[in-house]
């Protein structure tokens, strides 16, 4: 499975390109709107074309990500997929409790992280050594919170709560407890 960092590169490129384009457009507009000139009447056809463009962009974004971001369909179909490994993890009193000292798995193995909370709403995220995030989910008390993942690269990863659970939860981190090998 493609690494989530590759998807973030793509998103960064696309959004940066858009930001530069819209800023240039607004700069051009701000200049031109103060200048004398023949203002051609804007035809409704242009307006409706713009509406059509927005509809296409709005819908196609989600269709495109469905076919290009592998964990999207994996997530929606996870109930029908048999994982290679399951890790049952619990959270209470601002601490994670793991089934073993280290969670070991291989690259591209389908791993299900099943996290339960006994008190508050927490988050569950896996982070790389450089603090960038691999993925996350919310952990709601009284409900099943599971995420199916395939690691793309070997390495040592950390677990961190990604949701605020009061000031006591700031240090809800387990460093270097996930080991992914070839």
């Amino acid at each position: 499975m493609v690494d989530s960092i590759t998807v973030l590169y793509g998103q960064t490129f696309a959004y940066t390109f858009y930001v530069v384009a819209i800023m240039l457009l607004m700069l051009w507009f701000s200049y031109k709107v103060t200048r004398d000139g023949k203002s051609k009447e804007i035809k409704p056809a242009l307006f409706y074309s713009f509406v059509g463009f927005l509809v296409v962009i709005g819908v196609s974004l989600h269709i495109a990500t469905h076919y290009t971001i592998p964990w999207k369909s994996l997530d929606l179909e996870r109930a029908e997929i048999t994982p290679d490994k399951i890790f049952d993890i619990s959270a209470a009193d601002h601490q994670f409790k793991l089934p073993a000292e280290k969670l070991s798995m291989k690259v591209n193995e389908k791993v299900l992280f099943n996290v339960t909370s006994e008190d508050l709403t927490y988050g569950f995220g896996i982070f790389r050594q450089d603090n960038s995030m691999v993925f996350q989910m919310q952990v709601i008390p009284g409900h099943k919170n599971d995420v199916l993942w395939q690691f793309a690269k070997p390495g040592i990863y950390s677990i961190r709560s990604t949701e605020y659970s009061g000031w006591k939860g700031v240090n809800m981190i387990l460093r270097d407890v996930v080991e992914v090998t070839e």
Partner: protein
Amino acid sequence: MSIKETFMNGEEGLFKPNSLTPMQKLTLRFVVVGLIYYAFAVIEGMMMRIYEVTPIAAIGDEQFFAIMTAHPLVGIFGSTYSIVFGAFLFLVPFLMKKPLWSIKLGNWTLWLIAIGTFIFWFSGFISHYSPLYTLYWPLPADFSQFSVWGGTFFILGIALVMVGTAFFVVNVFKTITYTPEGWEKQPAGALIKSALGLSGFRNLFSKKKKEHLVSLPVAAIARGTVDTALNAGIILFTGVLILVYMVAELFGTSLKHSAVDALLYKNWFWWGLDLIADGLVLIFVAGTWYLLATMITGKKLFMENIARAALFVEMVVSWTVWSHHLMSDQAQPGILKILSGEMVTAFELITQGLAFFITLVTLWSGRPLKMTNPLKFLLGGLLGFALAVPAGIMQADLGLNRILHNTQWIVGPHVHVAILVGLTMTLYSAIYILLPILTNGAKLYSQKLADFHFWTHLLGGIGMGAFMGMAGLNGMLRRTVYSNGEFAPYMILAALSGALLLVGFLAFFYNIVMTVGLNGVIGIFMPAKLKTKDLLPS
């Protein structure tokens, strides 16, 4: 005039508070209260920016999260609600050419919001009650971390704001529908249908087109006010639930948290909360853009009927998008994530895109325009939403949300750019255009300061959002503390951008005080000498 004289009496002594009508005073009071709470929010924001660079002992984690809890609430309720409610309580009667239904109720709204905001801010500041604005169950009732008394006053403060909000809602709808003394009987039912867009909706399918009884900006205000009412109801209901737990605790009984389902709670609370973010803000902003564009150009709004229809669609969309906040909640049904979270949310790109396009074309039709303060701030506001809405659409995707949720990306390029650049610059545009009307011709003290404010606010707002976004893409979470300088380079740049915002606001505040003078500010809060229900002096 000397600087001291100008400071006391305003630029050229032109502002005379005794010449103001009660309505003008009411609106200006809202603006003053809103600006003071904006100062609270900016200063607290700067404190958080510094703490994100390096946690300092003088603040501490508990105080940091108490600030993080109060900051958005002070910004939205204390500042934005005050300015928006004040402006709309003036504009609805102004555009309908009749007096406000009740100035007294308007004053109640003002003081309930002002006092309520101070109570929840102060109780959070003192007691460190900090469940954040999201109030994820059962955190607001977790008394092992938070003071029961602090929480009780916090919730009471929020409740006062919501009661004030309810009074605003009543005042707006009564003003649209009531018959002033000596007037011919007004068709209340038809007016309300027109305001809510029901008659316009029927026009789409009927050969006999009915005339719109209310103008487009009033229709926008009415539709946004529906969301305001629903939101107030949800927040009040949630507040009562939390208060039940607090009162029981005070009497020595700890109620079970599991009595309330955390996911169900999260759904209803986000349904209500999203009526602010995706409902009234977008609808109010679109309506304000339309009004400003027509006032600046003196031209008719481009595609006015479509704009009306889009406002109606936006209202319905705002009732059905909440699930984009629960895309990382694995127990949330997948169908809701796709339909409500992804698809309906994409409609916001369409409705806000239409408002953007219609406003630009209307401005274009008035070429050549002078680059006045209202125009430049309006263009800034348009740019803000053009940047922030697509950022929001991206994070409302199931695939991208898995790697963006709760990172600084959400709160930077989306939330802060939308609020600071999009919403706030739109409000500044409205303030600049209404200033001469509300002050009977007071003269702005310094255009240079206004220009300085524009550029510092624009660059500071976009810069802060961008650097927070970069940190988020690199994994920085939005609701935690990093003690080892993990993201310090981004946070230093974000803090510098925040400092630009603060400096810009101080320049604006000084400019306004010098425009109306200290005596003028005090005079705004004194009882009106003119006894009239008219909006402006005759």
